[in-house]
């Protein structure tokens, strides 16, 4: 186990380095120049070449790429992702600022997903090939397929514009900010994300349970006089949930990465929105900082999933 862990860590560091190089090159391979974003053509007329050179120098863009990369990597190792081109603030600070709102939104959405998915998944498994099963299948397919921006704008139209019961955007009203106010702002984006996320979980729970329901030990439990409900919940479900550990662990990067589309539609002040804005503005440090953070999370949660799996399922041996 210990040796396994060390081996995994070493390969992961290699993977991360490759990601860093790839990220750095990819971001800069996008045609265009961040300076153009800072100085649009309308204001070119009054800025002049001296200003453009100055800015290029300030942003370190006048250095050879290798030097730029070395600097960036050296700083990134210490958790310093540089300064945002646009905002002239530390990228690390900007990312940290968004952790709270993002976790609040994504955590609530995940909770809603589970609350929906478990009962539906169990029901679909127990009533296999019945109308109930088909309806849940249709629901999960729909939840996966309908684009969230469409649902989002539709929800704004219905709940903010027509019924006027929920605020249309943001995380809180500027002149309020109580828990209830945040909850009202949270309702639409979290429910939408929860719905969209529930689809796959329904399928996982259903198939996980189905593979256990007809196992010998469930039949044994029933033969020994356990009720069907008890056999399902106490015996089958517990084993059916093992694969879900992986799924849950792998959703951690999502939890912090935010939801690009939904955050943009509802102007939620989270990571997803930051990533979109930074990409549009060619804000290299913010894009690379964000992407690197997510990469680290993906690698870490993959590792966590494998380790957890070994813990909950004694049939798995790491080595």
């Amino acid at each position: 186990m210990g040796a396994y862990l060390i081996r995994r860590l070493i390969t992961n560091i290699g993977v991360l380095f490759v990601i860093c190089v790839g990220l750095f090159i990819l971001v800069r391979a996008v045609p265009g120049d961040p300076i153009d974003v800072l100085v649009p053509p309308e204001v070119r007329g009054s800025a002049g070449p001296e200003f453009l050179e100055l800015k290029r120098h300030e942003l370190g863009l006048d250095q050879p790429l290798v030097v730029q990369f070395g600097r960036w990597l050296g700083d990134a190792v210490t958790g310093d992702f540089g300064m945002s081109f646009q905002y002239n603030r530390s990228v690390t600070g900007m990312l940290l600022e968004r952790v709270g709102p993002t976790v609040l939104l994504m955590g609530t959405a995940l909770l809603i997903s589970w609350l929906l998915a478990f009962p539906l998944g169990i029901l679909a498994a127990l009533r296999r090939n019945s109308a109930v099963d088909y309806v849940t299948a249709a629901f999960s397919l729909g939840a996966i397929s309908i684009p969230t921006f469409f649902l989002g704008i539709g929800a704004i139209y219905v709940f903010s514009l027509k019924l006027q019961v929920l605020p249309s955007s943001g995380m809180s009203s500027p002149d309020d900010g109580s828990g209830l106010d945040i909850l009202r702002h949270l309702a639409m984006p979290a429910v939408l994300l929860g719905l969209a996320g529930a689809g796959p979980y329904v399928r996982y729970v259903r198939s996980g349970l189905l593979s256990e329901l007809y196992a010998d030990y469930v039949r044994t439990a029933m033969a020994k006089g356990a009720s069907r409900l008890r056999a399902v919940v106490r015996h089958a479900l517990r084993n059916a949930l093992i694969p879900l550990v992986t799924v849950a662990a792998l959703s951690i990067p999502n939890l912090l990465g935010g939801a690009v589309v939904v955050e943009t539609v509802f102007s939620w002040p989270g990571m997803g929105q930051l990533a979109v804005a930074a990409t549009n503005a060619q804000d290299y440090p913010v894009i690379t900082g964000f992407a690197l953070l997510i990469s680290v999370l993906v690698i870490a949660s993959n590792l966590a999933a494998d380790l957890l799996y070994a813990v909950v399922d004694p049939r798995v041996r790491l080595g």
Partner: protein
Amino acid sequence: MKRTLLRRAAAAAAGLALVATVAAACTDPTAGGTDPGGEKSGNPSAAAGPKTVNVYLYQKPTTFYPAAPAAGANQLVMTTIFEPLLGTNEKYELIPKLAEKWEISPDGKTITFNLRQGVVWSDGTPFTSKDVSFSFHKFADAKSGSGYALNFAGVEGIDDFQSGKAQTVTGFQTPDDNTFVVKSTKPNVGLVAQIGVYLIFPEAPLKDVPVAGFDKNAFWTNPTVGTGPFSFVTYKTDQYVEVKANPKYRTKVAVDRMYLRPVTSDAATASLQNGEMDLVQVSPTDLQRVEQMEGITVSSGPGPGFIRIAFDLQQPRFKDKRVRQAMVYAIDRKSMVETILGGKGTVQNGVFMGDAVPADINQYEYDPEKAKSLLKEAGWDPKEVVTINWIPGQRDRDAAATIVESQLNAVGMKVKLNQTQTLPPPPPQDATLFGGGNYIVEPYNDRVVISCKTWVPNGGNLPRYCNEQIDTLMEQANGTLDRDERMKLYQQAAKIENDEVSYLWLFSPDAIWATSSRLKGVKATGDFTGIFWNAAEWTIDDAAK
């Protein structure tokens, strides 16, 4: 054994969920912090305070340094907390702000601004001509991060200052606390409107900040000292900028607090209806829907700039003006304004606007047949391909690009559209579609985009157009004090430019504003960054709901 393991896993999962909740609770961004002004902001008990106004921002602000290259959202916020010497009203006339009056000497070389007496900064320090001089020295210095250094060309001593030979500009003079003088080496009437509208910032808190990195000083993320009708309270990134009435302002400001909120335009339009927003800039696409809303007033004004395409005129194939004229005839710009802007805009036939446009210029009415014959005369090769670049994402430009493509193709000019994230490096590779600018207050501003001396990268003349005669006329006009005489000269220049087609001008979109009935006194301007020009006079009438 298995049971304990499962329990452990369940506990771990529960722990994860708990951590997430706690993390969210710990970083509750609305846990009313204390703002630098020392008062609580976001007071929950004053829910929807009676004198609070919510305004839509169409972008996220990035900095509040007035000399940084213009960006709409920054400008909107800054105009509430800082003031220029001269503002512009909804008719694009110059109006007194920090300067009560201004005059130009008979030789056109000296501009004298008489400053308003008794103005104080929001921290109580008196405002004087030294603040103006301090601000202008930063505006004139690219090293401070100013995007306006070139606009001071011709000011006395500017070259020595910009090259580092001199510490100060000899042409900026402060004879006394209430007078600021700008001296130029040659007559320069247009300078008044060009630099008079720059926002003035305070010397005292910034005196000792070195010029290198001046724009990165912490003051520009938290500009708590200003002369404007409002004072900066806080900027909650991605959420809102909060400003409050400045008690030191020269008149009583009726709006207690304003929140400027960057959201999507769809959300902004929805917020109008349910009372979350009081003032929204509306896109023409939403115009009909907003006009049907109850209790919402819609008003608009003609914009100060326009959407245009710059062709690289140094390419031989674009040198023949008949080719350029053909392109204008080929495009149905009137229908563009109708369909893309819902009629809220004007067809543009030159870079000049307002009184600088003569009555008898060519209107280039849509005429594809004429376009075809002009191309034929000019010997245009139908196999030639022209690439037009543009940055997608703004509805009017996106639609314009596709219409231009199809209508030019229809008259035998092969056009390929190319989306870019940023503009291709100058010169425009074939052509670039873009918009903006401010040409209506002062025609002399046009030289930046058409003069022989302002080719990119030394200015904003993207197509690298050049006509010595236009340049001469404009310089002559800029030295003419009598307004009517001056406009006549500009009109002559406009006539030539209209015939030569320096750019493929398309249209000037109006700015459309929607106001809730509780907010009174908003006077719509076509300048989408200028809506706060009279915000000191706005009032709130909650009975009007």
